């Protein structure tokens, strides 16, 4: 792998310097694959525009940090990826405490929409010129001027009770009626409010309100837990791709601290990540079938999926939430005799998956039902910065396993499956292709599994002030974890971006012009995972009070037979 050859590095430097002119502050290269620029906030929009338009960089995420205890200001950092060059670009601007605003980059980088609204809510830095500056993740009754990710906001603070409020939603255009989908709706496994504007059966517009289930995860990470406790929490970000989040977090810390993970651990991570993709894609296929009333697909794919879950249980002791990752490697090796069982299960799953794939590819009714539905063009996929199978189905050949190789993917690279149509059918085809490809990858990784230690020995404390960025190709797309190391044996800032966060932003454009019948399957074809996307606060719905449960309390609750006082 060549990371950022000299010419590219020079081109990036030149562009940032030219776009920021007098506002250029500094440029560093904290890691071989990361360039970090500090520019004055006045130039941020111009720099972002240049990176995306001229260099073809892809926007990843924004991170707002309250740095007052360190340097007396706030920091807004935008992260970009130069996929072909295996490079991350970080453009950061200091924001003085007495003037908390920065130019929004959303007008030039539409994919930054939610990311900017999130730092507005979380740390209170206003994105000036944002086209839609409404609240994103704070509850509607949350008091103004209270920003939970500021350092002086205690993790267990309860804001005063507020009066009942409605979400700020857009009104239907004239002639259209509102058809609410959610917050609770049969095909949404988790709460999300899609406000559809319909004329007859045709969708003419759409508005959303999400983030009903914040859990305070990032806040816990930088105020309560320690480096090695966070993997357990990260794994619980999602009930499907837990291992992905714990791996992604560990990799971010490992990169920040310069920890070399043993090769065997990287291979085992690869195997577990691909097993997760296999069972996630089978799960998704079933749900997609269910959404269009094809219950046979649901029942059969979930039956096929089950042996994979048993296999994960044989490996880790759990069907899900394996608890195997730790900073520096793994806490648990593969069982000695798991190889033959793994291969046998894979052979069975492969045979049945191929049968399902062929049945699905050959089903003309299914095809008629999904073709040209929920179309996302290549241009739109690029500008909204969607990731994973939806991006690949729109002809954007990005895959974190290839673009920013991690674990053992540099040695067992996946074959990337792409389609050009950008519709729901293409997303089906991409996922069933990936399913079969993942089975091959597990087999290859197992065959090449080296002997050796599974965890690096970490002798020194992790130094503060370092930055680590890590991506993992989850079944739903690229998950991003950014860790800024701090004192007290915990991150100063930990930022999580789940793939659904990026993909859901493409939803409004994808459904407009379609019919009501197309909405559930279009949403389903993005394979949304709301729990991943929502990370902030726990809110008691009866009182509106925010509460974060402590370790002892959770333990007490889970052990107590009397659950009447449980978390509800």
């Amino acid at each position, binding site marked *: 792998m060549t990371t950022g050859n000299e010419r590219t590095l020079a081109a990036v430097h030149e562009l940032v310097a030219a776009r920021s002119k007098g506002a250029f502050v500094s440029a560093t290269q904290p890691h071989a694959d990361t360039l970090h620029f500090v520019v004055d906030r006045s130039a941020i929009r111009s720099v972002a525009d240049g990176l995306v338009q001229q260099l073809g960089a892809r926007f990843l995420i924004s991170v707002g940090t309250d740095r007052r205890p360190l340097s007396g200001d706030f920091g807004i950092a935008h992260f970009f990826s130069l996929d072909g060059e295996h490079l991350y670009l970080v453009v950061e601007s200091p924001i003085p405490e007495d003037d908390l605003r920065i130019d929004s980059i959303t007008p030039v980088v539409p994919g930054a929409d939610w990311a900017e609204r999130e730092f507005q809510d979380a740390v209170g830095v206003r994105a000036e010129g944002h086209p839609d500056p409404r609240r994103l993740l704070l509850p509607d009754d949350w008091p103004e001027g209270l920003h939970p990710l500021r350092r002086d906001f205690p993790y267990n603070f309860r804001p005063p009770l507020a009066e009942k409020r409605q979400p700020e939603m857009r009104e239907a255009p004239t002639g259209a009626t509102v058809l609410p989908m959610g917050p609770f*709706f049969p095909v949404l496994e988790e709460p999300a409010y899609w406000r559809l504007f319909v004329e007859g059966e045709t969708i003419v517009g759409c508005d959303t309100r999400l983030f009903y289930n914040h859990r305070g995860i990032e806040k816990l990470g930088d105020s309560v837990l320690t480096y090695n406790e966070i993997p357990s929490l990260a794994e619980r970000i999602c009930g499907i791709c837990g291992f992905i989040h714990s791996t992604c977090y560990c990799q971010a810390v490992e990169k920040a601290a310069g920890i070399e993970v043993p090769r065997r651990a990287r291979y085992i991570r690869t195997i577990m990540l691909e097993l997760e993709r296999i069972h996630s894609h089978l799960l998704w296929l079933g749900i997609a079938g*269910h959404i269009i*009333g*094809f219950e046979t697909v649901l*029942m*059969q794919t979930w039956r096929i999926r089950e042996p994979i879950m048993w296999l994960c249980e044989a490996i880790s002791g759990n069907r899900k939430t394996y608890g195997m990752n730790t900073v520096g490697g793994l806490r648990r090796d593969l069982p000695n005799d798991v190889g033959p069982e793994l291969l046998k299960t894979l052979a069975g799953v492969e045979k049945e998956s191929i049968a399902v794939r062929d049945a699905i590819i050959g089903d003309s009714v299914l095809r008629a039902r999904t073709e040209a539905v929920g179309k996302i063009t290549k241009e739109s996929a690029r500008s909204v910065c969607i990731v994973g199978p939806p991006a690949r189905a729109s002809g954007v050949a990005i895959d974190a396993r290839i673009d920013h190789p991690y674990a053992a993917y540099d040695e067992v690279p996946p074959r990337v499956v792409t389609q050009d149509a950008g519709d729901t059918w293409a997303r089906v085809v991409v996922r069933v292709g990936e399913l079969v490809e993942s089975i091959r990858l597990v087999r290859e990784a197992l065959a090449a599994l080296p002997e050796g230690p599974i965890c690096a020995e970490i002798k020194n404390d992790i130094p503060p002030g370092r930055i680590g960025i890590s991506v993992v190709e989850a079944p739903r797309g690229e998950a991003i974890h950014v860790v800024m190391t701090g004192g007290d044996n915990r991150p100063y800032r930990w930022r999580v971006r789940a793939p659904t966060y990026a993909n859901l932003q493409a939803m409004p454009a994808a459904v407009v012009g379609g019919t*009501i019948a197309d909405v559930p399957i279009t949403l389903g074809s993005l394979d949304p995972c709301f729990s991943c996307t929502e990370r902030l606060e726990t809110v008691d719905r009866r009182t509106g009070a925010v509460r974060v449960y402590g370790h002892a309390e959770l333990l007490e609750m889970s052990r107590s037979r009397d659950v009447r006082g449980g978390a509800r």
Partner: protein
Amino acid sequence: MTHWMSVLLSCALNVGIALLLSPLVEGILRKIRAAIHSRIGPPVTQPYWDLLKLLGKEELRSTGGAVYASLPALTLASVLLLATLAPMGGAAPLSFAGDMIVVLYVAAMGAVLIILCGFSSGSPYAYVGSSREMMMALSVEPTLAIALSVGAFKAKSLALGSMTAFQVENGPSISMAIAGIAFFVALQAQAGKLPFDIAEADQEIMGGPLVEQSGPRLALLRWAIWARQLVLAFLLVEVFLPWPRFGVLPFDLLASAVKVLVVLVIVALVDVVNPRVRIDQAMGFFMRVAISSLAALAFAVIGK
């Protein structure tokens, strides 16, 4: 006197079959679905327990009004009326009161009542569901009408009994085979089965016209839908597949029941191997079915 007695008895028989056996048939269909899903599935008697449970619940209404309150009962009543007008094993009990035209109207009545139920329940999902149900009814009715007209043309009579008699006497024909297939496809939609359960579409509009219905109201509507699929299957079997005919009511009834079960099992099989189509796709499909069933009429004209 005896004539009226026998009419009453045969009405009771048809209504009894429609009411008492339709949950059992639904239970059997659920078992078949389950088998194809690799599931064990609920016991075949489950639909009876479902009805009992729903009937025992509190009645909740989203809006007021005497008409709205009586719609579920009216829907079930319309289906039972259809049962008395349709031949089920023997001749149609009220055949003297109405012919094919009345049957078509009464069959449409059930759908119209469910549509009204949806439109008046005040939910946007029910509204969308009802408009879908209406579009489905409008696209399926012509097929039903053309299919039965083929029988009427051949028998030179609008009475269903004469059509059956003509079929028994003259044996299968190309025109009746095509018309029978068209009727079967229409049955798939009338029974609300995939790929045509568009009006209810749980995952899109949460049950459509039925979304606001619960407890006894839902029980009556479910019962009406199950009974309707059974009565229409009987109609299909009696008009298009009346053989063998023994002339002895218990035997004919048994033979019809077996054929009805076979027809409904095929309906269930089609249901499990298909996803739901969109309303525009379904309407286009039924337009083509209606046009093709005109071919049956053409064959009937040339005596095939």
